[in-house]
């Protein structure tokens, strides 16, 4: 039976609808309503295109500061900062050799907020490289690469390479002496397979080194073609690749069941004091939250109540935003205090001496000074291969999610630190003080030096140490702990030597004031 209603009046409805339109616009845009209940908090995350990459609930272990130190989000934050500031810089930067340097000077002196934004871009870029390395170290030391997260580790390695590529391609754009000669060195390192093909006499027929360099530079010297290629890589190709890989990386975190945590995480949490203690469900709920599909594999909770998880909205987001703001603050502080460097206009006739690669490649350059091929291609390949194989070689399960977890633990890492630093310093000191094979046997064949040089010796020593650790603790994880720690030490020592102790002609000097003046 129809209730008595007023007869339909279209015009009155039109007026009512028009008046209700603003409120309705809000309601249709934000359908889940304010997030005040767990259900609406869930829908807030799940129903939002930007946020639904997050899982709806987060385990409290993942939110502890010491679990991750926020390094992954810090890397992402640094990337977002470089993205925004980079787009702004694109308003004024001109990617042609005759105009590039001037446009950077204009950005520095004349463009409103230009100096500040350029500084932020430079420091955030450096911050991103540091953060990505620290993030990789964190994931390694908490053994978070183990099943089922092996592939995500490989994606992370790809992200590391793309990050270094972004930093390297951006390095050339100011077109000053620093940029020009750093990239000259870098692309010559790309040509280093010639060391092998020349020694074998096959360069005429098979020249991958030359091809690599030609593809990078678009010419046989660093010039306008190289600049426009590096610009294309830096502003479009590599960011797109990075974004795609990031999407896979975050999705994988979801599908792998969130961040790795130790098997006894819940017990540990139970012992700690915290406010948001949720009791176990009084009864098994009929339906926990809106499920879009049945998924196979891991989700945060299958078959039991979501204990020890908190709604992502707002707890995870507070954590992420906090890390974002801290990263922003660090970049702002650095940008106010220190200007991004800019030397004189690039002059192909006046090489910088010493011509140094960007700091993250200085360890490589140090090794390149002993052997171009090994330092440029050989050892980096070994390192990348080694890093990539870690989750496939260490398939144990002891210690996942715990800092320095696994056989050996912190004592092994501590010892590896000592060993790693000492070995690197000793081998470098030897080479610096006494020289190497070429000084004693001037006619020795190049291939001998390629195989036997401080870089390869150090690598071999670290490998032997790792095998020793494996034997001692009867565990592949122990071997990995030893080797990774040694790698970090070696990287640090070589980078520091390359940065502070190498002067003109790559000679060793204790201090820049000892450098000879031309």
């Amino acid at each position, binding site marked *: 039976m129809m209730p008595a209603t007023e007869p339909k009046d279209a015009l009155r409805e039109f007026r009512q609808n028009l008046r209700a339109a603003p409120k309705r616009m809000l309601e249709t845009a934000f359908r889940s309503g304010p997030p005040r209940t767990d259900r609406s908090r869930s829908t807030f995350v799940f129903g939002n295109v930007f946020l639904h990459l997050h899982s709806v609930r987060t385990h409290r272990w993942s*939110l502890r*500061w010491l679990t991750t130190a926020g390094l992954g989000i810090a890397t992402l934050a640094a990337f977002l900062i470089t993205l925004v500031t980079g787009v702004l810089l694109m308003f004024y930067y001109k990617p042609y050799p005759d105009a590039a340097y*001037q446009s950077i*000077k*204009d950005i520095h*002196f*004349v463009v*409103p*907020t230009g*100096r*500040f934004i350029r500084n932020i871009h430079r420091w955030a870029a450096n911050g991103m490289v540091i953060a990505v390395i620290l993030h990789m170290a964190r994931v390694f030391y908490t053994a978070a690469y183990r099943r089922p997260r092996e592939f995500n580790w490989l994606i992370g390695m790809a992200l590391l390479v793309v990050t270094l590529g972004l930093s390297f391609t951006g390095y050339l754009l100011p077109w*000053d*002496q620093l940029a020009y000669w750093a990239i000259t060195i870098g692309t010559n390192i790309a040509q280093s397979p010639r060391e092998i093909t020349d020694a074998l006499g096959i360069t005429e027929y098979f020249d991958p080194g030359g091809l690599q360099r030609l593809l990078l530079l678009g010419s046989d010297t660093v010039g306008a073609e190289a600049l426009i290629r590096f610009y294309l890589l830096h502003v479009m190709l590599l960011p797109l690749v990075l974004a795609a890989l990031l999407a896979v990386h975050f999705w994988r975190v979801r599908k792998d069941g969130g961040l790795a945590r130790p098997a006894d995480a819940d017990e540990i949490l139970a012992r700690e004091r915290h*406010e*948001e203690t949720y009791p176990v469900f009084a009864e098994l709920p009929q339906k926990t939250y809106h499920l879009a599909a049945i998924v196979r594999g891991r989700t945060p909770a299958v078959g039991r109540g979501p204990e020890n998880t*908190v709604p992502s909205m707002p*707890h995870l987001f*507070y*954590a992420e*935003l*906090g*890390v974002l*703001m*801290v990263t*922003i*603050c660090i970049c*702002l*502080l650095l*940008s*106010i205090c220190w200007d991004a460097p*800019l*030397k*004189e206009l690039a002059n192909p006739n006046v090489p910088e001496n010493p011509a140094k690669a960007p700091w993250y490649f200085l360890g490589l350059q140090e090794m390149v000074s002993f052997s171009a091929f090994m330092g440029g291609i050989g050892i980096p390949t070994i390192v990348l291969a080694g890093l990539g194989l870690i989750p496939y070689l260490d398939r144990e399960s002891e210690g996942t999610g715990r800092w320095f977890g696994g056989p050996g633990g912190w004592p092994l890492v501590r010892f590896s630190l000592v060993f790693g630093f000492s070995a690197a310093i000793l081998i470098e000191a030897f080479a610096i003080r006494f020289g190497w094979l070429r000084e004693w046997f001037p006619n020795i064949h190049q291939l001998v030096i390629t195989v036997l040089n401080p870089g390869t010796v150090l690598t071999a020593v670290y490998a032997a140490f790792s095998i020793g650790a494996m034997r001692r603790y009867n565990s592949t994880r122990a071997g990995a702990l030893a080797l990774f720690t040694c790698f970090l030490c070696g990287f640090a020592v070589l980078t520091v030597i390359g940065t502070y102790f190498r002067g003109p002609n790559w000679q060793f000097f204790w201090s820049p004031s000892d450098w000879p*003046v*031309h």
Partner: protein
Amino acid sequence: MKKNKYLLLISSLLGLGLLAAAAIEENYFREWRRIQEQARGESGPIPVQLRQIVNPALKAADRCVSCHVSMAPGESMLRGAEMLRPHKPVVHDPAEYGCTVCHGGQGQATEKDDAHGRVAFWPEPMLPREMSWAGCGTCHVPLGVPGEKPLREAELAFERLDCYACHRVEGRGGTIRPDGGGMEGPDLSFAGLRGYDAAWHEKHVKKAEAESGAWRKSFAPVSAEDQKRLEMFLRTRTGASALVRAKSVFLSSGCLGCHRVNGVGGDDGPALDAAGLKDPGRLNFTGVPGGRQVSAWMAEHFRSPVSVVAGSQMPPAALPEEGIRQLTFFTLSLRARELPERYVPKDRVRAARFGEREFATDGETLYGAFCSGCHGADGMGRRLAGLAAFPGIAHPDFLSIAPDELILRTLEDGRPGRRMPGWLKPEGLRPEEIRAVAAYLRELGGTTRQPDSRPARWVAGVAARGRALFERYCTGCHGPSGKGGEGPALNNKVLLAAATDTYLVETIRRGRRGTAMAGFAEPAPVRPALSQADVEAIVAFLRSLEGGKS
């Protein structure tokens, strides 16, 4: 998760604070803003904004005028700060040319130290204020500049003859007629560029005869010598007399003997076309007094080349401090660069395409410019530690017996294998200029040549005996086989081709007074006198060295 909220709150507050600090710093604490806020124009305060002078042809975008606001295009007198004084009246309008073309520095910068170029990694710092005229050298080449002495005489002549009474030159002198009819005589500041009336002297004299009254006295006829001096003065008036004066000092220091400038000069030392553009970041300032300035480095280089440039063969400039300053001034002006067609000045065209000389071509200037660096201003040679001795070519004992042929041949072909270059070449001197130098040498020595009626080769001595004598008495200074040592090389092709036997014989017999070459016709404590036959034997031996045979 309270701590995350605290983290967010505190980092956001910090972020907000840092952003505010950066914003305030950029919008309130810039020096150019404070200067512009103080400025007051005709219609009151001026809008505070960045200003620049843009000249795409000269690749200039000079923001100097953000602080030096009065020099911006269209701005007139502004009051309020020292900085706001307008530019001194100069030939070229700064509003068209920009600032860095003449002054150097970093035009794109908007902070003081960056703009003045006194920062690391800027290769072209601003010229010192008192040497701003060196900036003319970016485009211009002063032509026909004489040596220091002739120029000074010219300047003094203009003063002595009271020309300043009627003529203005660079703001000095000139009388305004009492009836308001302008100046008595034309402004001669640019007479060297715009030309002057060639019949000026006749006109002056005629005027003196025609008019009566107080003006008559000034137009007494001027001697021919003084006329030449006045004309030299007029030819060098190009609006930058400080630079011309500095160039005259350069042209009296013999630098062109070893260095090339604009394609003319010797090649013992590097070409100086870009000597004024030295990058201070690449210079070694140890032992240079006066701070890390290019001008200080240059001055020390002139005082003591070897302590600033390791391994330098350059003799120290034998000049007092004022001379060193002038040399520095001129060297800073050697900063020519590529210019668009429209901006190439006439003097550069005259020099490059029509071969007009930068220096006056009288013997005194040429000698001062090319020879005095090695042979001394008085022509008596120079001896410097570590370098081979440079002979005294105006020595009376030399000039009285040297045939003209010898002097001319030596100037033209030099001494191959030794430091004396041959000057008859495109980068060297022209035949008439060489003759002028030779004539000046005779004048400098002050002696006339003794007539010599004998033929060029008349000696008939025994070379073998001459060799024994040579080895006993001569090799100590002249080296084995006469290849040179303390004394000149005697086996030199050009010397032996151009020297007459009389010259050689008389040189040995009389020696050169005041040098280590004794007169061997006279006895000495360590050796007997040589007889005529001995001397002829030595000469015969020397002749046998011709072509380098021993």
